[in-house]
């Protein structure tokens, strides 16, 4: 690609961002610290001050266990206080410490219904004192996602919507358009066998289903560790292909 056409491209990108009103705030990102994933995301990571959706695949669409783990890990890495909104009665709060979200950093909000949850979600995003707000919910209309997105944008708080449905068939909803920046689906896959008896680190099939200003992708990763970091399994990371994957970190 010639230098001139790169310049044109950058120019066009800026114009589009202008139309999308993304320019408002110099957007900062939270990288996954996994090159293969960060390369697929505009800016080199998950945008702060934006809405991201996470759901489980397969049985995970109903129980949302893996989605909670991923959201917990991301929220933990934002570094500040986190509000966790939910209305389920099967969340076991102390388990979030396994992904780095220790009890001193997270406050929980148990809503009576989804309406209450959304109002608290938005209120918390607008406040600005938190670094991330997680909401476990089923329905997310285009309009609601817009509201959440705007609230997140104003304060630079990361909004994580963990989508979880009562029935498998409802999970079809996940295809409907929203204004979220990224949309992820995480499905448990068999983990690498350990040399001894026991259960090792969980493994996920992580799909980036939708990404604003980027393309979809999918990855095979190891689940969040106690620092909230996911990792590419060793065999894959050693692959030479990654080295020549050209990647320029976008500056914004």
């Amino acid at each position, binding site marked *: 690609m010639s230098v001139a056409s790169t310049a044109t491209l950058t120019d066009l990108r800026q114009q589009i961002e202008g139309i999308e009103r993304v320019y408002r705030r110099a957007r900062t990102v939270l990288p996954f610290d996994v090159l293969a994933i960060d390369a697929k995301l505009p800016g080199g990571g998950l945008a702060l001050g934006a809405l991201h959706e996470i759901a489980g695949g397969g049985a995970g669409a109903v129980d949302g*266990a893996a989605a909670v783990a991923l959201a917990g890990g991301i929220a933990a890495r934002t570094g500040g206080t986190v509000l966790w909104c939910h209305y389920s009665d099967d969340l076991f709060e102390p388990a979030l410490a396994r992904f780095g979200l220790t009890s001193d950093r997270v406050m929980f909000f148990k*809503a009576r219904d989804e309406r209450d949850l959304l109002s608290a979600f938005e209120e918390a995003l607008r406040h600005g004192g938190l670094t991330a707000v997680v909401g476990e919910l089923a329905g997310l209309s285009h309009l609601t996602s817009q509201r959440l997105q705007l609230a997140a944008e104003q304060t630079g708080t990361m909004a994580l919507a963990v989508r979880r449905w009562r029935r498998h068939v409802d999970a079809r909803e996940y295809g409907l358009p929203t204004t979220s920046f990224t949309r992820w689906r995480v499905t448990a896959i068999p983990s690498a066998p350990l040399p001894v008896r026991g259960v090792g680190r969980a493994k996920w099939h992580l799909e980036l289903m939708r990404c604003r200003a980027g393309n979809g992708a999918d990855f095979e990763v190891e689940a969040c560790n106690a620092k909230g970091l996911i990792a590419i399994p060793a065999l894959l990371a050693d692959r030479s292909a990654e080295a020549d994957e050209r990647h320029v970190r976008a500056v914004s």
Partner: protein
Amino acid sequence: MSGTSGPSRDRPLVLKGSDGRRRVISAADDLALQVGARVGMPVAKAGSLFSDLVILDADPVADAVALEKLAIWALRLYSPNVAADAPDGLILDIQGASHLLGGEAGLIEDAMRRLGDLGITAVAALADTWGAAHAVARYGGQGHQIIESGKSGEALRRLPVEALRLPAEMLPDLHLLGLDTIGELSAKPRPPLAKAFGNKLFRRIDQAFGRTPEPIEPVDAPELIKVQRVFAEPIGAPETIEKYTRRLTDQMCDRLEQAGLGVRRLDLHFTRVDNRVETVFIATAKPVREPKRLARLLCDKIETVDPGYGIEKMVMTAAFVETLVMKQTLASFEVAARPDVEDLWDVLTNRHGEGCLYRAIPTATDIPERGIKRLPPGSVDTGSSRNADYRRPQRLYRKPEPIMALAGLPDHPPRAFTWRGQRYGVTCADGPERVQGEWWVSDREKGKVRDYFVLEVENGERFWVFRTGDGQHESTGSLIWYMHGKFE
């Protein structure tokens, strides 16, 4: 009564008052009631019948003052609308106030506990109207009663006519007519009775049944800081109410600043032109004196106020205050990047109720479902890190579900299991982690055992299952397998 100056507790005690003509017993303690003294009995008769009776003068004025004090105590803690229900009761309007203490039952329980700590034996009743609550508390028979909304009439009909707060001289005549219960009385045609007893009788009945409103005039405490605004022209539009709420909040904060106080609970009463009082209030976790923040919290609640034909007076009362010293904000090298989140917790708590927002603190117990304590946002408890290194699932089913499992005894993990109609083959497993029943919590848990396993199944999902019993001793459990949680 306590202290050395008080009369002995071993002797029956009565207080004497006057009923206009003679001196009668106005109050008697349990011991006196046991020996046979009754309220209303002439003092001379009681003195001659029961030789060791201690008779003291009743002091109705001091009683009234003490009751007023108690009303202010309740005003601070429970509800913006509290009045003394002389001579021996308090009346609280807890509409919109109970959610802060875990509902109506929670509020009553809390009030009874605190009154008990103060050395006051009390009974409580909750009903739709002042009259009904008064009647059920005194004549309902049982300790604490909550009459469901709309059922007050039913509860009232069974009670004696004494419960209606009627003048004492009216009661013998009613009994003479054979009208012993409120049900009998309210079923009678009104005109003949009204002629004999006057309007007061039916006003009390209507008030008890909720047909005539009976507003509670909140107790007035001079020491509470109060600001008010009277409108020449009644206001009704939400924007106007909001505007004046902000002004009153500004004034309130000035007054608080002079006194060096911060507010923990702020009440705002709206007096309507039809003389009804609408009340909203807010509570904060720590004392606050910022007009912006307080106005924000109050304005959130304005939509619940029904202005009716207009509001002619707004009164703002600092119901519960604490000292708030000036804090110097230092020019620090380390600039706080993000604003304080405490006001967000206040906003959410005031909007959705106290229990909604919580910190989850791990506790020192082996039983997973007990391993968590939910505390309010302001708490500083850090809990116990005893279980920090154990693998616990993020989804924990509140009620473990029985599963069909195939496993070797005594301590092998299942090879396969069936849960919710689906069969899973286990590829790898961790365990057992043995959890013993806590005999100090419940006798039935004594000697009981659960063996927990982490299982990964063929498609990669991970479950947390347990077996009751250790597989060797029958007394430890029935060897049934349960699904208890789901990992990532």
